């Protein structure tokens, strides 16, 4: 993949992540109801726990 493609992918990813984050926020603070909030919280926590297992790079990344 070229650098532009990676950046474009990354930019899309950023937008999606932000949108998802906002959605989770609204759900968890109860805008759509209490049971929805509880479910939203549980889904968020489960997702987070899964993501915590991903390995991280150790060397300094030259792109950043």
């Amino acid at each position, binding site marked *: 993949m070229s650098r532009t493609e990676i950046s474009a992918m990354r930019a899309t990813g*950023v937008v999606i992540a932000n949108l998802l984050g906002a959605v989770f926020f609204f759900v968890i*603070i109860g805008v759509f109801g209490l049971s929805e909030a509880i479910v939203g*919280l549980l889904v968020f926590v489960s997702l*987070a726990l899964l993501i915590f297992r991903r390995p*991280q*790079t150790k*060397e300094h990344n030259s792109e950043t």
Partner: protein
Amino acid sequence: MKLDPTVVARIQFAFTVSFHIIFPTISIGLATFLAIVEGLWLKTKDAVYLQIYRFWLGIFAMSFGVGVVTGIVLSFEFGLGFARFAQIAGPAIGPMIALEVLTSFFLEAGFLGIMLFGLHRVGPKLHFFATCMVALGTLLSASWILSANSWMQTPDGVSIQNGHVAVTNWLNVIVNPSWLYRLPHMLAAAYITGSFFVAGVGAWYLLHGKHEDFGRRTVALGTAFATILIAGQVFLGDILYGTMLRYQPSKMQAAEGFWEDHSQSPAPYYWIIAPDQAHQRNRFAIGIPYLGSIWLTHSLRGQVNGLKNTPPDRQPRMVMVFYGFRIMYGMAILMFGVVITSLWLRWQGRLFTTRWFLHALLIMTPSGVIATLAGWYVAETGRQPWVIWGILRTADAVSPVPAGALLSTLIAFVCIYALFITAFLVFTFRMIRRGPELAPAHAEASGSLKNALRPQVMNNAASSHPALEEQLP
């Protein structure tokens, strides 16, 4: 100039309690963090965990110390500045605080010595037990004092007989209507504070390329805890909001910045207002359209109740409650944004190498303290003009002490507390700059519990233990 004792007494209490709350918030968070880290060390034998434990133990000790001494002040300040409040509320909150002293202060104090100085005098399991006991102590302490404060907010379980409060039902006093909602909220606040503190310091090391294992581990731990906790916290916050709307409607009315009985529909969410309490209106107000209805009424066009629903002589000051709430909530949104970012970067495997994010973590280091303080300002200024909701007004609760005495002692507090916080910050920064020590190769302690209690071992341990010998110059 004639000073009003009520005003000076309130400023004095506000100052001492605001100063105080910073430190237990940090201590409660760090104590549990230390217990987790020590447990992980015992389980995995990974030396980095011990390194993390020893580093943060030093900062915890200072924070705990300042918290204790500023807390002692408060236990007497009820009577010093607000004797009438003490007399009225004593029968209800006195026994609760007495139990706080008995079940948590003594617990912390009893095991703190072992936790701080006993790494080489007791076995590792006993030491871990000591750490856990201190962490438990901080949790119990928060529980009792939250119950006492919650009783002031939503009193229950008492009857008033010729000006005296008599407890009729202890369960209702302790498990009063708001306690069970406010307690998890405060505990989460403390744990979030600890998480961002730890993550921020770890980020600093990564940015400077020092102590990288330590930095990575603490950034990972800190952001992980923060992620779960802030999600839980905003959930809890909304539920607490609903509870307080029921029991202290004037507080939530003041918090949102609306004056009219019913706001416009749809209601905006205000972020900046200039309230004019005397004329019961805002000079100007800036907000995000529709968001007020969405967040506050969970509908697109719902109306919000304004402060005019409360008679003016029972209204809290809107400017304090509103901005306290906005700062707290704004911080929560920022924190949520940061953890979402951290999840995104983790997904990509770039959590430790994305410099702008590490800078963000660094800036967020004190975020928990700011949010907690702001939240407490909402709680306390929003309860006004009551000191015990519906029972005693703050203005009627002041001590028969001249304003001059109150003012001079206020100045003394400011000076001495300035010394405390300066020293705390100077020494904390120094510890951070110095960095964590390399953990000794085998930092086991002198032996089993049984062994630890034999006098010969105690006196020999300090002078002949291999781990100690390695450290001595």
